[in-house]
């Protein structure tokens, strides 16, 4: 690629950066402006990675780089109230809704936390939180944490997000508090004829011995291609129990790159659950660093692709301190011409003795044209560790199919049941009932669509009867 075409391709981003810079320079504290400036330099120097880059070997970003996206003007979101309804999460403690990158309080559900505060949690739109710094009214923890974990040197998408983020959520779970219900962050792209880019930024600070679940949910209204480039920093203090959910269910034209960077202090216990069903090109980066001794991390995921969807999961699990445990379980279901990638990298630093790291990636291919690339990568610098990895790629097993049929299940129903059971392995690892019910419903709906698309081969839709399977699974 010549320098010229590269800058052509980055022109839209440069323009956005220029506008944003002009708008924000008198409102934002200097430290934030410096973070943006530094990140922008990183991004503009590197541009988008190519498949020559080992971390992007299986994912060609040309379709993303070729599309001209633009920032969304801050717009009235009130008219979307109806369209948002279908995306709400039953059982959530509150819902913060962002439309085209901007906080939309008028369609958010914050009745439970009216003043941004409740006993256990402080929340704020990130822009307001950061800008508060100028008036010395910033909530605690912002400057200390924002941008301190996401690696703009290694990851150009994190750099792009840091340079261009406009809003997002700041959640602070107070020391010792346990939130009973999950918090739903709904990031909506509503193109209305435009290819919109957003760079949502989320910061979750869970203070010592607190407990919370956060659901980050990406959706689209309309069929336009959008580009969501999200970065979340999750800071899990000592002895915390935190669950994070990423739900990607945007339209089938969407580009979605999300980066979850988790910092785990001593004895923190964090679960990351990624449920990918939407998007045309999806890259899901999960990067926990077990920075305190005895930390535990579960990295659980399910990706379901059909048509020409491309879903790339890049896991980087870093063990920095002794006695840490990490468990990665990713299941993929791919149909049509869908392509999946699972890249599971585990780095055990020299001080991280007695690390116990495990990685499993299981894939089900429903067509001859679906494809999965799975790649474990272990880098172990300590000598007393336990690291295992395994991957399987298969079709629905003939033995299981025959067993079910020999008990009277019609063939199509037997296939469907086995598919649901495979997906349910991921659900079994989700503990929060409201979040589990929520993602369960999304998965069921997506599998139903998938089976409908395949119905010539696969037969009728799963009946209500099969829906029952979810309740009795286990």
């Amino acid at each position, binding site marked *: 690629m010549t320098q010229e075409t590269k800058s052509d391709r980055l022109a839209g981003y440069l323009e956005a950066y220029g506008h944003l810079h002009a708008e924000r320079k008198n409102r934002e504290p200097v430290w934030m402006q410096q973070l943006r400036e530094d990140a922008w330099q990183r991004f503009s120097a590197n541009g988008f990675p190519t498949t020559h880059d080992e971390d992007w070997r299986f994912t060609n970003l040309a379709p993303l780089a070729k599309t001209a996206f633009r920032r969304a003007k801050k717009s009235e979101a009130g008219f979307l109230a109806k369209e948002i309804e279908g995306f709400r999460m039953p059982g959530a403690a509150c819902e913060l809704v962002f439309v085209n990158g901007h906080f939309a309080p008028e369609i958010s559900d914050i009745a439970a936390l009216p003043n941004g505060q409740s006993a256990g949690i402080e929340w704020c739109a990130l822009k307001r939180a950061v800008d508060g710094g100028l008036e010395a009214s910033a909530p605690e923890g912002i400057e200390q944490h924002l941008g301190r974990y996401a690696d703009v040197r290694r990851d150009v998408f994190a750099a792009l997000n840091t340079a261009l983020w406009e809003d997002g959520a700041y959640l602070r779970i107070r020391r010792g508090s346990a939130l009973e219900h999950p918090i739903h962050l709904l990031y909506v792209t509503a193109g209305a004829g435009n290819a919109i880019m957003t760079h949502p930024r989320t910061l979750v600070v869970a203070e010592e011995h607190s407990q919370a679940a956060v659901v980050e949910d990406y959706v689209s209204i309309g069929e336009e291609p959008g580009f969501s480039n999200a970065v979340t920093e999750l800071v899990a203090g000592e002895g915390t129990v935190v669950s994070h959910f990423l739900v990607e269910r945007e339209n089938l034209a969407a580009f979605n790159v999300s980066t979850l960077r988790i910092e785990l202090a001593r004895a923190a216990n964090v679960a990351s659950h990624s449920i990918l069903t939407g998007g045309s090109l999806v890259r899901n980066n999960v990067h926990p660093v077990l920075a305190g001794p005895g930390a535990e991390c579960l990295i659980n995921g399910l990706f379901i692709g059909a048509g020409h969807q491309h879903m790339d999961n890049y896991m980087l699990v870093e063990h920095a301190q002794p006695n840490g445990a990490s468990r990665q379980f990713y299941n993929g279901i791919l149909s049509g011409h869908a392509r999946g990638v699972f890249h599971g990298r585990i780095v055990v630093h020299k001080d991280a003795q007695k690390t116990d790291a495990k990685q499993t990636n299981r894939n089900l291919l429903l067509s001859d044209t679906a494809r999965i690339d799975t790649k474990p990568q272990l880098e172990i610098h300590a000598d007393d560790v336990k690291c295992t990895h395994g991957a399987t790629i298969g079709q629905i097993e003939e*033995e*299981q199919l*025959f*067993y*079910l*049929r*020999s*008990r*009277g*299940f*019609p*063939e199509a*129903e*037997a296939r469907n*049941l*086995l598919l*649901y*059971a*495979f997906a*349910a*392995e991921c659900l*079994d690892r989700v503990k929060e009932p409201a979040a589990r019910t929520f993602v369960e419903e999304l998965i069921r709906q997506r599998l139903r669509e998938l089976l409908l698309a395949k119905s010539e081969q696969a037969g009728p839709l799963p009946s209500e*009867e*099969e829906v*029952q*399977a979810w309740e*009795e*699974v*286990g």
Partner: protein
Amino acid sequence: MALLEIQDLHASVDGHEILKGLNLTVNAGEVHSIMGPNGSGKSTLAQVLARREAYQVTGGSVLFDGKDLLEMSPEEAACEGVFMAFQYPVEIPGVSNAYFLRSAMNAVKKYRGQDELDAMDFLPLYKEKMRLLEMDEKFTNRSVNEGFSGGEKKRNEILQLAMLEPKLAILDETDSGLDIDALRIVAQGVNAMRSKDRGFLVITHYQRLLDYIKTDFVHVLVDGKIALSGGPELALELEEKGYAWTEAGEQVQPA
């Protein structure tokens, strides 16, 4: 009319002929045992009757309750009343035993145009049969056969048999790998299922199972055909003399 009528059955696996002209008639209420050396075709017979596609029928006919069994898919055969207890029961992770069995029963009921069972009808029945097979209730919500011991898997097969109440039950080496306690429990389950309306085909390599399940007829399968048929005393004789004796060519007229 016989429950099962097999005439001159020929079947192949991967192009190798395993069954070479097998004849067998089972009437409702009868227990027939099929014995024979390894490789004689015992399991092939079971798989063909359960309609496994990999087992190709190349000749002969099988009538089940007057209908052509060889025209049926595995699920049709199951719904018509054929049940095979697997020699190696299959694990199905993510599907609970209770859901699996209730769905299977409802698939059969739907096929027959009967009302389906809801959980309230199902559970008491399920628990009663579990007691019969001395199975812990914890199995209810566990995934089908996943992490079960060999004996638990076999008991689970008989539990399914007891719930599905087929017209013809085929036990494919259900006794293999069972200790004496498990064998006794399995046999007890089978004996409880005996009725004048049901036929059994008990496939076994050893006479041992027949100490617990009273059989009406014993057939010895050698090289894809029934070489010998007789009463229960034939099993004892086999135990004593070994299969080599049948292969020596001594012929006994079918009973």
